[in-house]
């Protein structure tokens, strides 16, 4: 990287090769005004506000500093009379048609046009004619309004839409004085990322419906935090006035979100202060809930737990959930459940993710590694546009600008298909066959999961090209078990040296919850009961010895009457567990159900005790994203009513149970995590205090040896089901941790081994059945969406998509509504063709209004099979 010496305002500075003048100047403390230039988008030179005098040896000339790269011996003058005159002129022209309705403009007070007019403008205008008039404002989507009079035609929103989001649904229309930004008639700017245009519009032309006329910017107080809309962990500013959260803005975290947010994250703020938040604890009396005092609710909970311990013992108690919690809350609950109550029937996932060992037992990659220039990426997980939207933006950017090549392995077309170099379409539940065929060619007697041989060849060429390979690994479909994906991951890690994995689990802090041990067999710090039980036993009252049940196992046990107390830790299995039938049976079969939640969701309505929890923005803590990046969540508002933070509920419960978690503050918890967790070593209270504003850090911190799957792959795994043979696992586990016990040595990193499944054969399928593939959409009927006023109602519903070849045999018209039956249930659904869906596969979406996939899915089947009923011979 050669440096370039340039002179700015008489001062010598060193710019990077290729750096734009506007950036180099800013880096050296000289701010050049601008409207159209945005550091995360390509420059266009639309607005001319950044004109400065630049001399490249041919004498000074006015040039747009956002379009000019620094060259050796360039002289830049940002304060010369000529520059000043240009700035005056540009602003006078920009204001010719601008309505100057600042008093009623949302942007007033934080408006670059206002501010730069004050700093650089002429102060008066010679324009006395009539200004341009437009209808004020027009909706361009369900969330964004456009006031064309205010638009200065900077091209930021339109460039964002096409360059960044890939949804060029807004465009400049007409010409000259008539130019305006608009959509095609009746074709709204329905982008998942539309809110970003509101944030980057340098004037008040684009406003967001949820924030419009709610506040003046100078009345807002802000703090930084991390979005909990999904697990990407975009950095945001929470802005509040009078104890009400009024908006989120994207903060540019270079390793994560680059300032962008998806609309679900951005407008999810409306759920924080929603009117029907749980304010106080509730206890069931017959069919009704009564509001009770906290001590009554906690005593009722403790009584149920004590009774369960007395009758069934710890295994009669189970905890589902934890991804809503902060890391500190999750640690407190892990300590309460595992260390104090002694149960290992704890799972922060809802049967819709991957086995913990597939998340923690593989070499981990960061987002930057996934998007590294020239890298190859395998997408083996959900549709990232729907589930991890800003990760979609990052990877799309990498493909379009940095030569990243993507191989998509999927049974359905996704939002990434058009950016992928290769899309391998395989039959549902046969991702492993496709990936093995990708690596080795299609073995004799098999067909590579139905994937096209030429496509596999193209993918193999990419994988063997020598470029670094990263796999985004997640749950491809909710209606099949994750075994095929885990087996595919095992094949990749065995066969491709240096391959790394980025988790594709989607729920907010699920990675933090896993790191805190909220999964069967795990303890905080990415270690197992077997490996670190002794170490934790030093501080915790006890540590379970037997690996417990995962959520599916817990619900099955509950349905069979083996669960006395089921604690829902911010989980709504009725809505989120893929198999509704099993979730219903489980909730009905558990003797006592305790729900800690922010809303009285469907599952909480079945509970016996409901404990009102503080939510996002209402408590301090840290969170962990898909990369394992820990960042700080700051509190901005107070929780509603008497709602309490989850860790305080855990500590109080422990006290009533006659014990003590010995955790009295968030800092106490941070100290204990730092002390006990191998993954969080060095993440002290002091370090975290310095991270209150900032990008966060990936744990384990670099100075520590990374725990990871460097073990020698013990192939006869125990399957993805929770093993009840924990003893075996203990002896299988290489005794990595240094002696723990009496001395104060910490345990070393205890590698988690990927739990492998035996060679899998998907069950054969008859000619009239389809394997069901169930994906998610960004907007569904989940709590965050349905409680955020302006997002509620955006869930699009679902149809069933099948291959035209299969469709033709049905003998019905496109769009006909037919009964769709699985062994679990029956729904009515509109059927459409999609040639991207492989034969024998049927695709629908989860948790949507109308046809409910959860009524069909059998969580115990390797893959749910469905049939369409055409009502007799046709």
């Amino acid at each position, binding site marked *: 990287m050669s440096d370039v010496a340039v002179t700015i305002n008489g001062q010598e500075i060193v710019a990077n090769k290729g750096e734009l003048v506007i950036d180099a100047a800013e880096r050296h403390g000289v701010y050049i005004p601008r409207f159209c230039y945005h550091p995360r988008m390509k420059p266009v030179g639309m607005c001319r506000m950044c004109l400065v005098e630049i001399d490249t040896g041919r004498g000074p000339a006015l040039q747009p500093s956002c379009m000019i790269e620094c060259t050796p011996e360039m002289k830049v003058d940002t304060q010369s009379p000529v520059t000043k005159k240009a700035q005056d002129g540009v602003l006078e022209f920009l204001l010719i048609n601008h309505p100057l309705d600042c008093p009623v403009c949302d942007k007033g007070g934080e408006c670059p046009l206002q501010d730069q007019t004050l700093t650089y403008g002429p102060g008066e205008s010679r324009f006395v004619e009539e200004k341009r008039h437009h209808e004020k404002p027009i909706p361009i989507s369900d969330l964004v309004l456009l006031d064309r009079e205010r638009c200065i035609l900077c091209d930021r929103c339109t460039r964002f839409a*096409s360059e960044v989001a890939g949804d060029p*649904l*807004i465009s400049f*229309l*007409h*010409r000259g004085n008539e130019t305006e930004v608009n*959509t*095609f008639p009746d*074709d709204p700017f329905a982008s998942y990322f539309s809110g970003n245009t509101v944030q980057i519009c340098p004037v008040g032309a684009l406003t967001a419906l949820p924030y419009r006329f709610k506040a003046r910017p100078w009345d807002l107080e802000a703090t930084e935090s991390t979005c909990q809309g999904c697990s990407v962990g975009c950095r945001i500013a929470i802005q509040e006035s009078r104890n009400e959260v009024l908006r989120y803005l994207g903060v540019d975290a270079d390793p994560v979100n680059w300032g962008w947010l998806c609309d679900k994250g951005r407008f999810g703020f409306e759920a924080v202060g929603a009117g029907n938040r749980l304010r106080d604890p509730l206890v069931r009396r017959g069919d009704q809930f009564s509001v009770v005092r906290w001590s009554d609710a906690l005593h009722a909970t403790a009584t149920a737990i004590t009774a369960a311990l007395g009758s069934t013992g710890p295994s009669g108690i189970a905890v589902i959930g934890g991804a809503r919690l902060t890391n500190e809350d999750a640690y407190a609950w892990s300590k309460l459940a595992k260390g104090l109550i002694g149960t290992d029937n704890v799972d922060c996932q809802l049967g819709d993710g991957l086995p913990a060992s597939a998340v923690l037992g593989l070499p981990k990659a960061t987002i930057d590694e996934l998007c590294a220039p020239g890298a190859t990426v395998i997408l083996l997980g959900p549709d990232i546009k729907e589930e991890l939207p800003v990760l979609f933006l990052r990877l799309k950017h990498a493909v379009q600008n940095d030569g990243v090549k993507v191989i998509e392995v999927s049974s359905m077309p996704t939002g990434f298909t058009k950016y992928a170099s290769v899309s391998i379409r395989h039959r549902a539940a046969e991702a492993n066959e496709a990936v093995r065929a990708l690596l080795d060619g299609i073995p004799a007697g098999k067909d590579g999961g139905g994937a096209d041989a030429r496509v596999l060849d193209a993918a193999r060429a990419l994988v063997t090209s020598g470029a670094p390979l990263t796999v985004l690994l997640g749950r491809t479909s909710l209606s099949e078990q994750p075994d095929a994906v885990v087996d595919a991951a095992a094949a990749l890690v065995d066969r491709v040296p240096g391959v790394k994995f980025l988790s594709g689990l989607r729920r907010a802090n699920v990675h933090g919850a896993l790191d805190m041990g909220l999964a069967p067999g795990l303890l905080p710090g990415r270690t197992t009961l077997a490996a670190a039980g002794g170490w934790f036993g030093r501080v915790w009252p006890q540590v379970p010895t037997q690996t417990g049940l995962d959520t599916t196992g817990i619900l099955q046990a509950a349905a069979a009457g083996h669960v006395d107390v089921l604690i829902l830790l911010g989980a709504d299995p009725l809505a989120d567990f893929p198999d509704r039938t099993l979730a219903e049976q489980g909730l009905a079969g558990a003797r006592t159900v305790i729900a800690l939640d922010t809303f009285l969701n469907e599952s909480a309505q079945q509970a016996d005790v409901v404990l009102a929890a503080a939510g996002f923005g209402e408590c301090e803590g840290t969170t962990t994203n898909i990369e394992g990046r820990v960042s700080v969540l700051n509190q901005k508002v107070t929780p509603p009513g008497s709602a309490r933070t989850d860790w305080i509920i855990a500590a109080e419960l422990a006290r009533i149970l006659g014990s003590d978690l010995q955790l009295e503050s968030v800092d106490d918890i941070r100290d204990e995590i730092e002390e006990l967790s191998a993954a969080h070593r060095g993440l002290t209270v002091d370090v975290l205090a310095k991270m209150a504003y900032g990008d966060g850090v990936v744990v384990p911190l670099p100075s520590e040896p990374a725990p990871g799957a460097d073990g020698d792959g013990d192939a006869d795994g125990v399957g993805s089901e929770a093993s009840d043979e924990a003893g075996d696992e203990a002896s299988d586990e290489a005794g990595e941790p240094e002696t723990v016990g009496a001395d104060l040595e910490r345990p070393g990193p205890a590698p988690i081994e990927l739990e492998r499944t035996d060679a899998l054969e998907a069950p054969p399928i008859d000619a009239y059945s389809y394997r069901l593939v169930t994906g998610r959409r960004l907007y569904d009927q989940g709590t965050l969406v349905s409680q955020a006023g302006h997002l509620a109602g955006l869930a699009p519903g679902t149809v069933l998509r099948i291959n035209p070849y299969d469709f033709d045999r049905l003998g019905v018209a496109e769009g006909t509504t037919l009964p769709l039956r699985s062994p679990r249930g029956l729904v009515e659904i509109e059927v459409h063709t999609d040639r991207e869906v492989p034969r024998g596969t049927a695709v629908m979406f989860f948790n949507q209004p109308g046809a409910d996939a959860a009524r069909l899915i059998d969580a115990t089947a390797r893959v749910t099979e469905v049939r369409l009923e055409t009502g007799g011979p046709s």
Partner: protein
Amino acid sequence: MARLTTENVGVAKEIISRYPRPKSALIPLLHLSQEQDGYVTEEGMQHIAELVGVTPAEVLGTCSFYEMFKLEPVGRYVVNICNNVSCMLCGSDELIHHAEQRLGIKVGNTTPDGTFTLESVECIAACTEAPALQVNYRFFNKVSTDGFDGLIDDLAAGRLDDDVPAHGTLARVRQHIPDDRRAGSIPPEGQTEPAWMHLNEPPASADGGEPS
């Protein structure tokens, strides 16, 4: 009617195949759509968007930039009278006034029978022939008020059908590039020099050396 007809889809595909990127065919396709319907309809733009793989908003963005694409129905004959300096000095103000009287409409409007649309336009590059006008972009020079009346009579009676096709038709004979003369869809970044340069390659020279 408003989407491209099957026949025109065939023409559209041939046009698209002339360009390295389908999007480059936008303008000729908009002309095709306008030729079919007399103006560019929303459905036409949606259809074009599908054909070249962009969004309808992008098609509208391009289409609305150009005055010659009409987004609303216009008359069979669009009469553009130049109002710029040369024509104005030679009487175009009077001509426009006369045209309004004769056609019974103000500039910018269409006669109720849908035959004529009257427009007053900027320079049409016929200053030597002022005052000039165009009917469906065919020039008529040095037009007097009487001449204008005669022209309107002739158009209305169909006497000029051979010279002036209905609005939207650029040329009666469609340009057709034989396969072997086409540049083909070679992406520009794959090109080192214009594709046609290879078509008439001279025989390899004997010395074959680089000029020094």
